[in-house]
């Protein structure tokens, strides 16, 4: 069984169905790509997994524990980290401060109140900064980073959390060719120790990283398989030819 | 009946219920302008109480210095205070639309200036607005007695609600307002000038406060500080209602009625305290208020 299991998830906003009986099994130490045209329900699914929205029905299990409907911070503490579609970093803080905030092993306000130095964090910060290639940029304000660097900073923040499962919503959006190459190498390295769920449109990138691909359409499950199987799938072709994406 | 409820006095309780409607109408009329301004522009106008006060003073001034009959003072106050609101929006608020906390503070600064300005001009002693003799009398409805003027207030409130509803849901201007409220950028793409819409709603909201103020000047005495006693209640009506017109009507009626019922069992001030506690608890479950305005999702 998977480390993250989604069972029959549904969501509707006063009649409008955005997610319809969607199920997904994510196996440990694999990278699962979620594909689908706009409005397929990919970001909504991520919102449900991370507690940002509550499902109308269905269950989400993490390591066989029910996490459906928990608050965002509780789910994050259980080991799910998330990168947002529109990079969400703290623009007024420096790159270093962004990474420091994300190191959330200790979440109690009182214990953090007189915490000024943290050797464990320093080590982790050096490691992550190297990983995402921001060692030279630590002192500058996050708001001044380029788009690709901002993406990496947010990936770095997720890594600082040290989660079991990383949810990445369009991590390669707005990146140059070289940056995408670097990101796919990083992801292939990451999946040796972590489980990843990636929402992505760039098929070349998906081909580089995905172990298994799940396609969503109109809030429902359409197909699951390897990238080759998916590309040969007639129903998937139909869905994609019907929209402007690809 | 008596044996069932102990010393529960049914007729007094029924009067309390009717009084609640009157209290609700007063709170609602105080909150109308605030609702429109908050609902449309998202501005918490802390100077709203002083707009009420200005309405009372304009009516007093027109009556005392120019002998204008009271029922003409009401529309005149609408125009005068509406103009004040227009000037405030053009001169200050429009620079602060994307800073909600700062608008709150800046409008509070305005309220201080207005209150002290009026105090310097008219002094701190109370003024009175005279109404035709017949409105000072009370009418008996069965066992219940209410001053005729409170009924006038109730009727004017109902009339204003109907007019605002018509303006917002049946006219072109209203459609523009609703478009801007839901999605400013989208509305701009369709050629709606959101700046102008905000300006007009601000003036309208201020004008409504002017009307309410001239009525309060009759219900009570006219003082530079009179606004503060109404404004907190008006805010609560808006918060509970969620910023929409229907929400404010429901919240005004509901809180007015509850206040009256609580007051029947305890005292006026303790009823107020209970009401606040109840509202805090309500917000725990409905943080957006009863009838929140739906905005475009980010």
């Amino acid at each position, binding site marked *: 069984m998977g480390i993250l299991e989604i069972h029959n998830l549904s969501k509707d906003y006063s009649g409008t169905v955005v997610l319809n009986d969607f199920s997904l099994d994510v196996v440990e130490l694999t990278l699962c790509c979620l594909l689908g045209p706009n409005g397929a329900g990919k970001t909504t699914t991520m919102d449900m997994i*991370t507690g*940002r929205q509550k499902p109308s029905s269905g269950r989400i299990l993490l390591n066989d524990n029910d996490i459906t409907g928990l*608050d*965002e*911070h509780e789910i*994050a503490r259980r080991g799910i*980290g*998330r990168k947002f579609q529109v990079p*969400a970093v*703290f*623009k007024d*803080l420096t790159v270093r*401060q962004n990474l*420091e*905030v*994300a190191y*959330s092993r*200790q*979440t109690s*306000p009182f214990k*953090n*109140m*007189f*915490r*000024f130095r*943290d050797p464990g964090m320093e080590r982790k910060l050096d490691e992550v900064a190297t990983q995402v290639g921001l060692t030279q940029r630590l002192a500058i304000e996050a708001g001044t980073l380029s788009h690709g660097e901002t993406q990496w900073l947010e990936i770095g*923040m997720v890594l600082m*959390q040290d989660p079991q499962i990383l949810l990445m919503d369009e991590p390669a959006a707005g990146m140059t060719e070289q940056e995408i190459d670097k990101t796919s190498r990083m992801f292939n390295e990451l999946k040796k120790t972590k489980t990843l769920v990636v929402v992505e449109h760039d098929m070349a990138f998906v081909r580089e990283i995905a172990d298994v691909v799940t396609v969503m359409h109109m809030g429902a499950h359409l197909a699951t398989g390897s990238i080759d199987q998916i590309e040969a799938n007639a129903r998937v072709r139909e869905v994609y030819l019907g929209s402007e994406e690809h | 009946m008596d044996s069932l409820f102990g010393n529960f006095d049914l007729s007094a309780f029924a009067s309390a219920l009717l009084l609640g409607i009157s209290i609700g109408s007063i709170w609602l009329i105080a909150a109308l302008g605030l609702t429109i301004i908050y609902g449309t522009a998202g501005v*918490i106008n802390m100077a709203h109480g002083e707009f009420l006060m200005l309405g009372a003073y304009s009516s007093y001034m027109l009556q005392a210095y120019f002998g204008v009959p009271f029922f003409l003072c009401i529309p005149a106050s609408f125009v005068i205070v509406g103009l004040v609101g227009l000037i405030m929006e053009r001169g*200050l608020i429009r*620079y*602060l639309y994307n*800073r*909600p*906390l*700062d608008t*709150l*503070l*800046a409008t*509070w*600064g*305005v309220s201080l*200036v207005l209150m*002290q300005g009026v105090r*310097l001009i008219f002094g701190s002693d109370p003024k009175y607005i005279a109404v035709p003799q017949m409105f000072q009398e009370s009418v008996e409805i069965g066992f219940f007695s209410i001053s005729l003027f409170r009924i006038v207030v109730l009727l004017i409130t109902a009339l204003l609600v109907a007019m605002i509803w018509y303006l917002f849901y049946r006219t072109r201007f209203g459609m523009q307002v609703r478009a801007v409220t839901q999605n400013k950028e989208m509305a701009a793409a369709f050629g709606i000038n959101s700046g102008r819409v905000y300006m007009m709603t601000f003036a309208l909201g201020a004008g409504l406060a002017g009307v309410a103020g001239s009525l309060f000047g009759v219900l009570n005495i006219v003082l530079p500080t009179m606004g503060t006693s109404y404004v*907190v209640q008006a*805010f609560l009506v808006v*918060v509970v209602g969620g910023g929409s017109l229907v929400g404010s009507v429901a919240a005004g009626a509901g809180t007015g009625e509850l206040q009256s019922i609580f007051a029947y069992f305890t*005292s006026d*001030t*303790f009823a*107020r*305290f209970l009401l*606040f506690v109840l509202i*805090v*608890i309500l*917000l*725990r*479950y409905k*943080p957006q208020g009863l009838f929140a305005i739906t905005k475009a999702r980010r």
Partner: protein
Amino acid sequence: MFKSNPYHNKTAQWVVYVLFFGALAFVPVLSDDAFMMNQFATYGVFGMLALSISLCWGFGGILNLGQGIAFGLGAYGMAMTMQMQSQDPETSPMPPFMLNNSVEQLPLMWEPFWHTGWGIFIALAVPTLFCVIFGTIMFRARVSGPFFAIMSLAMLSAWYTIILDSQPFTNGVNGISPPAPLSIGGFEIDPYSGFIYWMVLFLLAAMTLIIKLITTSKFGLIVQAVRADSERVRFLGYSVSYYETVIYAVSGFIAAIAGCCWVVAVQYVSPAQLDVSFSISMVIWAGIGGRMSLLGSIIGAFMIQGGQSYLGDEFLATWLLILGGFFIFVVRFLPKGLAGLLESGLGLLVAKPAAERESAPGPVAGAKVQG
């Protein structure tokens, strides 16, 4: 010339803080006018309130228009403690105002105040507990920004009316005026002495330095992140409502201490301390002085309250008119207040191309206020 803005220099900030409070500590040496000592002590109390607002609003981003609740409850607690010090269980078990209100026996609510230690504990614990409960309800429901400001204002007016209305327990509008100064373990704190001034100043300085320290900790960093984007912080595993409640409660605790000191200094408390306009004045002090700066806010309180008391009552309306106008100006053009003005002023001293260097004013002329 500086390489970077000295306003942001951590060492310089600490030096300025220490110098500021050090200089204030010498005031009683220069003057021993007892009345002035008392008045300066009350300014210190206003400074504490400004500090609490700066923490909550400037640093935490939570605009609290109801700080008078914590201040007032603290003040009433201290006034009740001091009042009971003048009562005797045998001969006069009840405060005189209760007899006037024909209360038969001491209300249960007053019993713990026989004991000074318990009294002071309650004076501090009740307001803090109120903040914890109210804060938890509001922040859990994700009430924030202007909505929280309105709710805190409404809550304040609720407390105001209830205290005003509970004549038999609180002496209503007249308030409580304990007949004798506070005495702790036989030592009487003379409200007209250098001692009261030093006591208030010591508490103000200690609290300011602790808050300053906290803002530089990991906690401070997380709160900064919450202020910038509370939504994002949740996904990092922090409970935003917990952090907001802690900030709000610590700020309330400081206000409660201020309330206690206030009554020790003026021997008087009334519902006026919970008046809406007083709570909003606190926000004005911090706003004009610079809400992002602890010291700026404190100086804002000193300036405005000082100005107000020296102008006297006949100019009060004019003074408030000007204050309101100035406040509008600050909100519109100087969101960081006078401290922000200093920040940009010192920013001009940062090393620039050679041509401009000649005309720049001398260094550190005004490293007085900092962030």
